[in-house]
């Protein structure tokens, strides 16, 4: 039984797997419907066939299996050509847009020469398989090579110096847009020396569109997801609203230089001189955060989410103020925040509309099972593990602000394994957007000479 909204999705998926299961389709939605409505669904009709639903269900269990069901054929996807058929640049660009191979924004066409130049950014062979990606757990995986990743890097507007980071993201095999009706957002964070080698912005406005590396690396992840994960809206990608973080995936480098805490990749077992990319997944981003750890705990306690993780993205000034409050490490702060963000159990269960936590409680999974047994006014810590709370330091110290997200850390990958032996391949004149001004003398950005405008003279007395 699958709700009618997803009929084509499950039929297509089953056929791709060489199966012809017998589905019956009640109306949509089921979640949040009263028992009376659900009874009407069952006593009513399949909206797609107009047949009584239960008559269809019983028929599915008792009607003899047909020859087609005994010997289903798999609809195999053909191997892709390496090159597209030659055409004018305009027509080829139209082909990319109309086939859904882009994010809708302009791309650079991946010509042989551009991709060959991009491949100068790594020593790995173009035909080396980097990984397999998919956006749904059931879908057929697609395989991609170093050359395919380079083609995507070209499309995103990247230069060869960015390729090792993009390859590392590709090697995680995680899509930037996992298909969920709940609309995931993602975040990609870079640590280590490569941040400065390719001039990523880790400081002022690092999360805004003012830095080439941050922009193209984050964008490349989604272009990979579209083309390697076969993301097609309404077909394979079922997010009801979608998420505008999908355009760039909050890509930034951690501000290790200004942070008083250890960089994130050290927390994950890498060394300080390694370059590492880390990826996160969640739904919600709350931008205005101001105040000490007590306020962070307060916001966390009121921040609704289906998950149990929180990742704070904090300005270096916040890291310094946490240190001044007495927290020696990020983990010390996270531990305190967990202990001080408890909420009444009744309030927690009211917020669990997805039924996910309730289900785990019914199966005896802790701590959900215990939370289900306590009184409604008993205090519980929904974000119960300091390991699920992350702090990332980024920003330009113009205000001690922090961002609260419900992002879960999912994976880190080494960038260094993708570096060429001769070092990061920079252009003779690297392409750079204006760097964020970091003023030390109070005069930065003020022109040396200005034209003098004479003040208007008062009209002479008549």
């Amino acid at each position, binding site marked *: *039984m*699958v*709700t009618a909204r997803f009929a084509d999705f499950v039929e297509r998926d089953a056929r791709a*797997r*060489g199966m012809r299961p017998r589905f019956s389709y*009640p109306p949509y*939605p*089921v*979640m*949040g*419907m009263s*028992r009376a409505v*659900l009874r009407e*669904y*069952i006593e009513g009709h399949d909206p797609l066939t107009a047949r009584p639903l*239960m008559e269809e269900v019983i028929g599915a*269990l*008792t*009607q003899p*299996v047909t020859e087609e*069901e005994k*010997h*289903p054929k*798999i609809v195999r*996807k*053909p*191997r*892709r050509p*390496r*090159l*597209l058929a030659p055409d004018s*640049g305009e027509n080829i660009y139209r082909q*990319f847009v109309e086939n859904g191979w882009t994010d809708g924004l302009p791309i650079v066409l*991946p*010509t*042989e*020469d551009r*991709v*060959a*130049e991009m*491949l*100068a950014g790594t020593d790995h062979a*173009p035909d080396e398989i980097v990984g*397999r990606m998919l956006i749904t*757990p059931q879908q057929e995986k*697609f*395989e*991609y090579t170093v*050359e*395919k990743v380079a083609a*995507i890097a070209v499309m995103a507007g990247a230069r*060869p110096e960015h390729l090792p980071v993009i390859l590392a993201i590709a090697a995680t095999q995680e899509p930037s847009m996992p298909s969920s009706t709940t609309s995931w957002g993602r975040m990609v964070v870079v640590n280590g020396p490569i941040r400065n080698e390719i001039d990523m912005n880790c400081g002022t406005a690092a999360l805004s569109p003012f830095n080439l590396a941050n922009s193209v690396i984050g964008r490349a992840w989604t*272009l990979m997801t579209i*083309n*390697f994960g076969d993301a097609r809206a309404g077909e394979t990608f079922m997010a009801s609203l979608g998420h505008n973080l999908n355009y760039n995936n909050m890509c930034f480098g951690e501000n290790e230089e200004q942070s008083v805490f250890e960089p994130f990749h050290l927390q994950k077992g890498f060394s300080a001189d390694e370059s590492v990319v880390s990826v996160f997944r969640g739904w919600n981003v709350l931008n205005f955060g101001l105040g000490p750890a007590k306020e962070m705990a307060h916001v966390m306690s009121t921040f609704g989410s289906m998950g149990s993780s929180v990742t704070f993205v904090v300005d270096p000034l916040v890291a310094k103020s946490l240190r001044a409050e007495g927290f020696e490490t990020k983990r010390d702060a996270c531990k305190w925040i967990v202990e001080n963000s408890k909420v009444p159990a009744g309030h927690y269960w009211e917020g669990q509309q997805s*039924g*996910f936590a309730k289900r785990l409680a*019914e199966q005896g999974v802790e701590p959900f099972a215990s939370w289900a047994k306590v009184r409604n006014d008993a205090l519980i810590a929904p974000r119960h593990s300091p390991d699920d709370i992350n702090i990332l330091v980024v920003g330009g110290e113009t205000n001690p602000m922090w961002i609260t997200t419900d992002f879960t850390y999912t994976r880190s990958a080494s960038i260094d394994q993708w570096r060429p032996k001769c070092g990061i391949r920079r*252009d*003779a004149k690297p392409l750079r957007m204006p760097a964020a001004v970091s003023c030390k003398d109070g005069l930065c950005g003020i022109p040396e000479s200005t034209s003098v405008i004479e003040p208007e003279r008062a009209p002479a007395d008549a």
Partner: protein
Amino acid sequence: MEQNGRLTVLDPHGQPTGIFGRRLDARSKPGDILDPFAQPTSDLKPASLAPRLDALDGKTVYLVETGFAGSFEFMTEMQDWFAKNMPSVKTVLRHKRGTMFSDDPQLWVEMKSSGADAAILGVGG
């Protein structure tokens, strides 16, 4: 810019950099466009449907609740429907372990060994 009916447009071509990479196929021309899409990997074998029952009378049908919100209530209503309309059918309502996204091989084994004649899984979505 248009002047005397003639257009002047920007040259979109990249400047030479003196940096040379590698091509997978040296015979292809520099301006050829690469297909950005990944390759399919399917190595699946077709799976046939299990034989069907002649009728449900006197049979045991498992109603497996998949874990999506509302599916337990939906399958409970279905169980009530069987009790009311086909009382000779024995129904067993079970939760699938884990989440809606996880498999539950233990349950499938249990169903086979405990004499289940048929199963209805629901409700997805």
